[in-house]
């Protein structure tokens, strides 16, 4: 594993998942993990398995929904998609993220 790959910033995996589902629609777990890796340009060190605990939490919050479907290998798998309240949550999370980055940027800019 190369050293220039960075860990996912704490608490942002939820946002990445929600945002990916918002743009891609319905996905199964593997496709979701791959998609996140591709978008990040392979610069992210993601254990693909770590999306599953995040997914169950988002599902319990009611932001994503699951349906059963068939994978490319003909296996019965869960497909995830955004719910109505999930869509709203994406907006909230994005706003939070921007607020945080703006704040941090201001601090960094202030240092001489």
């Amino acid at each position, binding site marked *: 594993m190369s050293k220039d790959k960075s860990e996912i910033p704490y608490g942002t995996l939820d946002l990445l998942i929600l945002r990916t589902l918002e743009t891609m629609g319905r996905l199964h777990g593997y496709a979701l*993990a791959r998609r996140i890796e591709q978008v990040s340009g392979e610069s992210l060190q993601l254990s*693909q*398995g770590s999306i599953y*605990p995040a997914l*169950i939490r988002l599902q319990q919050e009611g932001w994503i929904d699951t349906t059963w479907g068939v994978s490319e290998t003909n296996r019965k798998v869960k497909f995830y998609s955004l719910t109505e309240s999930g869509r709203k949550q994406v907006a909230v999370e994005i706003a939070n993220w921007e607020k945080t980055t703006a704040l941090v940027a201001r601090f960094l800019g202030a240092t001489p």
Partner: protein
Amino acid sequence: MTLHRIFARLMALVRKRQLDAELEGEIAAHLELAERDALASGMSPDQARRAARRLFGGIESMKEEHRDRRSFRWLENVWRDVRYGVAGLGRDPGFTAIVVGVLALGIGANVAMFGLLDAVILKPLPFTDPDRIVRIWEAPRPGVSNATSAPDFLDWRRLSTAFEAMGAESPVSMALTGAGDPVRLDGRAVTSDYFRVFDVGVRMGRTFLPRDEEPGNDSVIVLSNAAWETVFGADPGIVNRRVILDGQSHEVIGVLRPGAFDRSEETRFWKPLVIQQGQYKRGMHWLTVHGRLRPDLTPLQARDEMRRIAEALRDVTPSHKHTWLVEVESVQKLLFGDHLRQSMYLMFGAVVLVLLIACANIANLLLAKGAARRKEMAIRTALGASRSRLGAQLLTETLVLAVLGGAAGWALASLLVSTATPFLAEMVPYTATLDLDYRALAFAGAIVSLVVLLIGGLPAMQISAANIGSSLHQASRGSSGGHHRMRRSIVVAEVALSLVLVCGASLLFRSLLNLRAVETGVRIENVVTMSLNLPLQAYPTPDAAALFFESLRDRVIAVPGVSQASLSTHLPLHWIGNGEAIEVAGQEAPVKVRFKRVDAGYLDAFGIPLLKGRFIAGRDRHGSPGVIAINEVLAARLAEVAGVRDPVGLTVGLYCPVYGDKRATTEQVEIVGVIRNERVAAPGVPHPAVVYVPLSQVPTDGVKLIVRSGLDSGSVVAGVREALRAVDPHLPVGEIATMREVRERTLAGASRPAWLIGIFAGIAALLAAIGLYGVISQTVNQRRREMGIRMALGARSKDVVRYVLRDASELVLIGLVIGSAGAFALTRLAKSLLFGVSPLDPLAFLIACAAMASIGVLAGLLPARRAARLDPSVTLREEG
């Protein structure tokens, strides 16, 4: 966390299996897809499988995280721990039994004591708004209560505004005849407002109305529920029936509701109180007055009003009563006086100490067990269990133990409570139900939580990372300084706490011995007493009564086996409720005296010495010149206030109650003799001044028959009953008691706490000894090698015993020092219960310390002897 998520997580608990299966499926599918992609990128199948796994990350840790996220993991854990804990406790039944037993002892005693306290002090009296019921009385001196005169009561009732109702009562005793054997019924004559004060309600019929108080209408009675059931066979048609009391027909107008007034035989019926013409005297005190306060007033406010009324009545009040004060106090407070309250709190304190010691003991056992389980814990840590998980598991085990102990304690408490009910009946004048209700259950729950709080953390504290690490390297030697020090401190605390209890018990027992040694001034062995009440109807004149007394005494003395017989209004060792006064010529203030009627046989029956002059004789009869004998205290009082050097021959004026009446007249009587003081009050209360009046000269209706004999009390009573039947076949016998019983009753208030606390102290000392034994045994086990080396180097078994005992004594000594300090601070709480012993009595402390020290040495001796028998050649070869 949103509600949505909480619900989802709870659901996940239930759907655990399904969710696990779904996750497995997702993982498999994910790996399959990843492997396919890897193959497509040109890897070999083997490489592809490995790449897929690598990209996925740790599968097991992800599953753990998934479970943590999706449900309440701790709930799952608690349930698993409980099952594991129960299984573990089952594997070590001896340990479990001891811990549960010790806990049951501590919790059971506390719950039972709470039940008692709740019934006696915390629960309200069984009347409507019991806190508004007050007693009203005149106090000649602070702390002394006096009965009330009829005119004062009527004025109070007329002038006061602080009360919704005010009622007066006076005890009566009547013979019920006409249905089998005559029965004596004790009751109260009450004014019509009485049942508005003590609002208990009727089961059937009605209570009194003002018209029942009018002369001619007063032959009506109200029955207590208990009397209705036991005496009248629960006759449903009792209301309006007529019964014969003292030869006179009375109509039953009502039966009270069960409860409040059912406990004792003191009051089984009520009749209207009719104040006779001659009873309107302010100097004649015979009524007990109760009032029901208006809802917005306190007893103190009512008292102020009553004092203003007394001030307004000053002109009509006899001058010697001008300094008297009116008191108003809540009945609840009066019934559960300071003494009862204090002894209850003291006993509660004692059981709390027992509980603390029980906890200390269990903490000790748990620590010892923890030491034995260090390896198990170490292995589980090595296998990946977190410290907090292990701690939680140990805490759950303690919780299971505490709950089991609580359940066993509850059972023990129920048993104790059913045994304590008769004692309770003696303590409380009204019906008090002693049962363990939801309040007791809540209390038991609180105790169990307290126990878990106190000892639950200890075993968990033992698993510190360093400890665990070293445990795996250690063989069976297993010494660990830290927790061993903790066990030693716990034993010191146990010894200290027990010493406090043992000190208390030792003080109370010394006090009890003092009480038993109190000079009663009377011989009480082989004396049986019976109470009798003459119906006025059958004995309308004083002569008739006097004749009855004389013939009864002649008959009784003729009963085979009877050596002495006497009649008296009051027994020795029994307070004389009748207070009168004597007037000495030339002295303005009358001298207050206790008034006791006796016959000529009284002195001999109790062996009371005559000091001067003569005692009452057979010739002092109704109509002959009035005479009295007095006690030493009165002789001294007369010398003090009137300068009378020799009272014998002195003639004084004496207020004498008139036979069959509540009136009193002043009679001129001659003092013929002085006798030694006999004890009439509880120990610690000084002897009052007493006049002894010839029963035949001033007869009354209620007397005690006193019989001394060489026979057992059963056959004496049979003989005496026969003698009584020969004199009057219609007269029922009241309470029968031996003088020993009378004395026990007088002392009971002091002996019961002493015995209870003695038992608690014994339990505490035993628990402390067990704790000490455990710790010393463990020390000896840990130092086997050391002892072996010492013995190999020439130490004799004697030296080893001394060495181990020194260790034990050190713990005991520190415990005794701390405990003594605690006892010094705490024993003064028992001050009011002690008689003739200072709360800091050095002898009692010394005895307690000596007792604890010897218990400590005994507990150390067993392991010491085991150590002395060690064979060095064996110990030194042991693994280590």
